[in-house]
C-alpha cells in the first residue's frame, strides 16, 4: 500500500487576543481613546510589534506534535471538541494555511466539500460559474468541458443554466455549487461536516457523495460531531484534544474513548476562558450541570427520577430576544429534542430581553423519559434569526441507569432513545 498522507510533527501557532477585541467598540469613549492612541500604534507597527502591542498578545498552539500516516484508499474520521484543532488540520492539509512547524506530504490533489460555491459570482450565469468555480478548484477547462453535462444533470438546474445565479433559489445555488465540487474527483477528499452549510437534505447528499468516493478507493478525511456518521462511514479515527493527537484506533474504539475521556467532567462542564470563542461575546457560558433529585451533581442519573439541567452563564452586555437552551441527542448522534428557556410565550415576554449579569437557566426533564445508555447534551444561546452567540453540540454527556424502569423485568435491550411509562389500559371486549 502506498501512503497518501504523511504528517510529521505538525504544529500551528495562532496569535489570539487583541485582534478581535480591537473592533469591539462598546463605548464611544473607546473610539476616542483608540483614535488618540493611533500614533503609538503606528510606532509599534513600524517597530514590528504589530497592531496588538506586546502585552495583550498571546500565542496558542492550535495543533501541536501531530504525526500520522494514512494509506491510500482509507477513510479516516477525526473527532474532537470544538477548538481541538480539527478544522486547522484540514486547512493545513488543503494548503489554505501554512503550518508553523513540521511537514506534511500529500500524494495527489486534495479536494474538499467545504469549499462549495467559493468564487461563485452572483452576476454570472450558472454556466459561467461552473467554469469559474472549476478553475478555482484546480480543474482544467478541458476537464470541465468533459464533465459539464454531468455537472448540470447532477445539479438539476438544467433549464436555468444561462440565468445569473443571483436569481436562483438558495437550494438551486447550493445544488449547483455542490455539483461542481463533487465532480472535482480529487485523490484525497476532505469533508468538514462541522462547517457544512445547507439543509439536512443537502448534508445527506454530502455524506452520500463521500461514501461513493470512499468506495472508489480514494482517500477520505472526515470531520464530524455526529458519532453515528463517523461510525458508519469510517474504519479508523483519530481523536484530537486541545491540538494534540491523543488516540488513533479503529473507529468504534476511538469514539468510545472520545466519549468517555474527552467529556469526562462528571456531570458538570465548566468553560475556561480559552474554550469560549471570542465571537460569542457578550454571551459567556460558565458551566452546565446535571443534578439528581437531591440536587447533587451526577454523572449517572436514574431514569425513574426527574433530572435537573442547569446552565449558568454571564451576559457582559444586555441581549434582546435571547433564548438559551439545549439539544439532547443519543450517542449515535440522533437528536431527541431541542428546548429553549423562553419557549413559553409568557416567559419570553419577561426574559426575552436580559440585562447584563449572571444567570442560571434551569429545567427539569421528567422521570421515565430516558432509556438505558449514554446521552449527549448540546447547548445553544441565540437570538432567533439574528445571531447565534454560542453553541457546543457536545457540551456534556451522562449515563442513564434504568433500574426500576418500565419493562425491566425482562432482561432485554429496548429499542429507541426514550423509555416512557405509558398508561396502558387493557380491556376485555369480548
Amino acid at each position, binding site marked *: 500500500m502506498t501512503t497518501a498522507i504523511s504528517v510529521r510533527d505538525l504544529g500551528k501557532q495562532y496569535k489570539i487576543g487583541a485582534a478581535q477585541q480591537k473592533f469591539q467598540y462598546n463605548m464611544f469613549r473607546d473610539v476616542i481613546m483608540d483614535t488618540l492612541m493611533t500614533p503609538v500604534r503606528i510606532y509599534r507597527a513600524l517597530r514590528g510589534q504589530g497592531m496588538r502591542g506586546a502585552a495583550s498578545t498571546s500565542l496558542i498552539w492550535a495543533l501541536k506534535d501531530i504525526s500520522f500516516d494514512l494509506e491510500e484508499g482509507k477513510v479516516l474520521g477525526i473527532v474532537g471538541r470544538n477548538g481541538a484543532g480539527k478544522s486547522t488540520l484540514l486547512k493545513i492539509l488543503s494548503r489554505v494555511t501554512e*503550518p508553523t512547524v*513540521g511537514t506534511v506530504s*500529500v500524494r495527489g490533489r486534495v479536494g474538499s466539500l467545504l469549499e462549495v460555491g467559493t468564487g461563485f459570482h452572483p452576476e454570472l450565469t450558472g454556466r459561467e460559474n461552473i467554469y469559474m468555480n472549476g478553475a478555482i478548484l484546480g480543474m482544467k477547462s478541458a476537464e470541465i468541458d468533459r464533465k459539464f453535462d454531468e455537472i448540470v444533470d447532477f445539479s438539476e438546474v438544467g433549464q436555468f443554466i444561462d440565468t445569473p445565479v443571483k436569481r436562483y433559489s438558495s437550494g438551486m445555488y447550493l445544488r449547483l455549487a455542490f455539483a461542481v465540487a463533487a465532480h472535482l474527483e480529487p485523490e484525497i477528499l476532505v469533508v468538514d461536516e462541522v462547517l457544512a452549510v445547507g439543509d439536512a437534505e443537502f448534508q445527506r447528499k454530502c455524506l452520500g457523495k463521500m461514501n461513493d468516493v470512499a468506495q472508489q478507493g480514494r482517500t477520505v478525511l472526515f470531520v464530524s460531531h455526529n458519532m453515528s456518521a463517523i461510525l458508519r462511514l469510517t474504519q479508523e479515527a483519530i481523536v484530537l484534544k486541545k491540538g494534540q493527537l491523543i488516540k488513533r484506533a479503529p473507529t468504534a474504539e476511538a469514539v468510545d474513548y472520545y466519549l468517555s475521556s474527552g467529556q469526562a467532567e462528571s456531570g458538570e462542564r465548566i468553560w475556561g476562558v480559552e474554550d469560549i470563542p471570542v465571537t460569542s461575546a457578550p454571551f459567556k457560558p460558565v458551566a452546565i450541570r446535571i443534578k439528581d433529585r437531591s440536587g447533587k451533581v451526577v454523572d449517572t442519573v436514574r431514569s425513574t427520577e426527574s433530572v435537573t439541567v442547569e446552565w449558568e452563564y454571564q451576559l457582559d452586555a444586555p441581549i434582546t430576544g435571547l433564548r438559551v437552551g439545549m439539544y439532547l441527542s443519543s450517542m449515535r448522534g440522533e437528536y431527541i429534542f431541542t428546548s429553549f428557556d423562553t419557549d413559553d410565550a409568557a416567559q419570553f415576554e419577561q426574559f426575552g430581553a436580559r440585562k447584563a449579569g449572571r444567570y442560571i437557566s434551569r429545567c427539569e426533564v421528567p422521570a421515565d423519559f430516558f432509556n438505558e445508555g449514554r446521552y449527549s447534551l448540546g447547548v445553544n444561546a441565540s437570538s432567533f434569526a439574528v445571531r447565534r452567540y454560542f453553541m457546543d453540540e457536545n457540551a456534556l454527556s451522562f449515563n442513564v441507569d434504568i433500574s426500576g424502569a418500565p419493562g425491566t423485568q425482562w432482561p432485554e435491550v429496548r429499542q429507541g432513545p426514550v423509555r416512557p411509562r405509558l398508561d396502558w389500559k387493557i380491556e376485555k371486549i369480548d
Partner: protein
Amino acid sequence: MSEIIKHEPTTIYIKPSKGLAALNLRDLWLYRELVYFMIWREVKVRYKQTMLGAAWAIIQPIMNMIVFSVLFGGIAKLKTDGNIPYPIFTFTGLLPWGLFVAALNQASRSLTSNQNMVSKIYFPRLVLPLASVLSGLVDFVIAFVILIGMMVYYRVMPTANVLWALPAFLLLAIVTALGVALWLSAINVQYRDVNYALPFLTQFWFFISPVAYSSGLISEKWQLVYSLNPMAGVVNGFRWALLGVGNGPDAGLWISVGIALVILISGLYYFRNMEKTFADTI
C-alpha cells in the same frame, strides 16, 4: 472514469516556508487558466447592471479630457509639446494613467473582496492581483479606439516607433501597477487603512505625473528626480510614440524602468512573505 486516476499523482510537500519564501512562479504557471478566468470574470461583471455598460470605459477618460482641456488648456493655457492640440495631448496621457489607477483600485481590494476564496481554498494568491491588473487592459483597448479617432480628426500621425514602443511602454505601466498593487493588496489583508489611503495616493501620484501638463514644464535640474516616478516615463513614452513629441528613451527612462522593477520585485517578495498568513489574518 477520470483522467486523474490514469496518471501518477504528484506528491506535494507542505512545510513552513523559511525566510523570504521562494517565489514559486511555477505554481502560478500551473494555475494560468485561473488567471484567465479571473480576468474574464472581472471584465464580465464590471459593467453589469449599469445602463451605459462598457461605454463607461470611454466616458471616464473623455470626461477627464474635457475637464482638463477646459481648465488647463483653455483657462490656464498650459503649453503642450510641439503644438499638439491640448485635448489629444492629455488624452494620450490619460490612457495609461487610467489603466494604472483602475489597476490599483481593483487590485488593492482583490484579496479582501475574495475573502472566502482566500480563507477556504489553496491557489497561488498572486492570481488575484495579477488578474485585476490585467483586466484593465480591456478598458484600455476600448479607450484606445477613441484615441485613434482623435488622431484622425486632429491629423496627428504616429511615429514609426509606435510598433515596438507602445507595447513596451504599456508593459512598463503594467509592471509598475502590478508592483504597487502587490504591496497594497498584501498590506490591505491586515490593515484596511489602504482603502482610505488609496484615493490620496492616486491623487498625489496624478500630480507628479505629466498627465495634465507637459513634463517639459519641469526645470532641467529636477528632471532626473522627476523620472524616479515610473509613470512619468510611461506617459512621456506614450506621447513620444504616438504624437512624436518629447525626447524618447533617455537616461530618465532607464531610471523609471529600474524603479518599476524594484517595486515589482520587492512587491513580489513582500506578497509571498505575507501570503502564508493571509488565510489567518484576512
